[in-house]
């Protein structure tokens, strides 16, 4: 990774944080801590790690086009923002659907979507939904019921290996998903079928809806657990872009690559720490709190 590339990636990460922050202030709430924790590795993925084609989606997201069905021929998924599907290209699956705003911001920050798309966020009839589903920009599967994306992506990886395609299958998961039984069923499967064309990156921000993960349901030593399931695990500083990039370069012989990205849910927005452990969805309790966070976070982001 060149210093130019590093600088560019840092700028993208900053842009993601700014977009989500501005949107949260404007809307009096949002999934802000998720931007703090994931902006750096998402910037690294979109700007350097993922081998994706140019977006083939409209610059401004289209309206919701109805449910997929045998009758609905107009149906497309948000994967169009990740470009064409091709042998050598990677696929990128987003599992935690509540990161939707962060993914939209990332697509904007790397020029895959128009900045005005955020005006459509959570607006009735729009595909830029709050939680997101497969029709939302950047999404390829219906991901809001956690852990299913990892299984679906494994099926895709299995199929791509049969077809002898060269691209990797990347999945972004959140650490709370290690509480889901299906996650472990899937890691068993990835190990059993040696799906070494898969790479998983987990946002280990220690946060979930009820609060800190270790108070809700401890997930323990995930690195050791994953190793026991046959995964190649790299634990990295999830805010160190060079470290993330180096880990992504590993092409395991057996089993999937898993990058555990240790992150902070207030990275780049230190004032958020005051709300700990209630960080899942930042809704301001008072105008005073909003002004205070706005001023303090602005000082850091601009």
């Amino acid at each position, binding site marked *: 990774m060149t210093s130019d590339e590093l600088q560019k990636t840092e700028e993208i990460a900053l842009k993601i944080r700014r977009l989500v922050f501005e949107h949260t202030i404007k809307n009096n709430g949002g999934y802000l801590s998720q931007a703090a924790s994931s902006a750096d590795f998402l910037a690294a993925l979109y700007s350097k790690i993922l081998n994706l084609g140019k977006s083939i989606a409209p610059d401004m997201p289209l309206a919701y086009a109805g449910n997929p069905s045998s009758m609905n021929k107009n149906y497309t998924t948000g994967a169009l923002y990740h470009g064409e599907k091709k042998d050598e290209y990677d696929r990128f699956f987003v599992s935690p659907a509540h990161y939707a705003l962060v993914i939209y911001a990332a697509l904007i920050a790397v020029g895959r979507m128009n900045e005005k798309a955020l005006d459509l966020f959570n607006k009735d009839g729009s595909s830029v939904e709050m939680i997101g589903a497969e029709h939302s920009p950047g999404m390829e*599967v219906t991901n809001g*019921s956690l852990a299913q994306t990892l299984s*679906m992506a494994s*099926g*895709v990886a299995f199929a791509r290996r049969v077809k002898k395609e060269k691209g990797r299958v990347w999945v972004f998961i959140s650490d709370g998903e290690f509480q889901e039984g299906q996650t472990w069923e899937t890691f068993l499967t990835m190990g059993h079928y040696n799906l070494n064309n898969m790479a998983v990156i987990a946002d280990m921000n220690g946060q979930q809806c009820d609060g800190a993960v270790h108070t809700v349901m401890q997930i323990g030593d995930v690195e050791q657990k994953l190793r026991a399931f046959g995964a190649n695990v790299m634990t990295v500083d999830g805010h160190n872009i060079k470290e993330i990039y180096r880990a992504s370069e590993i092409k395991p012989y057996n089993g999937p690559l898993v990058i555990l990205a240790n992150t902070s849910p207030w990275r780049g927005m230190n004032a958020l720490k005051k709300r700990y452990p209630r960080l899942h969805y930042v809704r301001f309790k008072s105008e005073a709190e909003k002004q205070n966070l706005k001023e303090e976070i602005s000082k850091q982001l601009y």
Partner: protein
Amino acid sequence: MKVVQKPYAKAFIDFAKDKKDVYCVTADLTSSCEVDTFRDQHPERFISLGMTEQNMVSFCSGLAMEGFWPFIHTFAVFLYRRVLDQIICSAAYPNRKVRLMGFLPGITTPGGITHQAIEDIAVLRCIPNMTILETGDATEVETVLDIADSIDGPVYVRVLRGEVLRLFDSPFQFNRLRLLSEGEDILLLTSGIMTEEALKVTGALKNAGVSICHLHVSTLKPFAEKEFLDCLSKVKHGVITLENHVITGGLGSIVSEIMAENGVSKKLTRLGLKDTFAHGASLYYLLAEYQMDAENLLKTVEKMMNIQTGIKKDNFLNTRDETGIELEKTEDL
């Protein structure tokens, strides 16, 4: 009537052997679902996923996204209870061509509550994009795969295994009702193994002068509404449904919804499990215990027409007379 041994085993091989995109997927019940020979002959298109049913449904959705056609084989009961969320979000919402081949439907297993899929049709029927098929004889087991394969979306199939009677000489037809006899007194709709059960007494009823329009139902969703209404308009006394399922949400409910929406005021009696679980016992024992057998069908007809036919159990047709084979209580799980 002739009993066919393991019709699905051969049917799946014949169907899949030259289709390079068809994958046979199982969850630790490979020989129980009669696909062990396929596994041995085509290991490259066999995927064992162990007892990871939730993962299996989503994983197969991923295969389908890439243009492969996964046929998932396990017991019916494991295909909709613990995996309902996966069926909905990974298969049904995105309308993926995932085929759910459910074995041991209803009370065809002595495995008791944990193994008897008695509310599968009710649960799956309310899911958009889902198609539901049920096989009632060896011919339908042999020909349902092409039907399932032709449908653009997820399909759930109730499959019969082991010793399966051959009742029909024409293949499974999608969304058509199979007319077994014409008649003006009563319209009788049966599905799955209950058609065999009904045939034990319909001949005797005919001899006793009762005119029954008997329809065998193998497509439960969608439903051939017009064909049903046409037959319904011709009968005088009413409708009886007989299903290997709870009477809520399945065939009986489908029929009652159509009758109500079309303003048809005829008497309807739904035979099946009446808001009760079953337990582990043989099929014929359970059919009698839960008043779903031919004898109870006879009583229902007599009550609906307010007649006494004089038919005795001795007059029933022994559908398995050629071999004397009956479904054994201790079928291998």
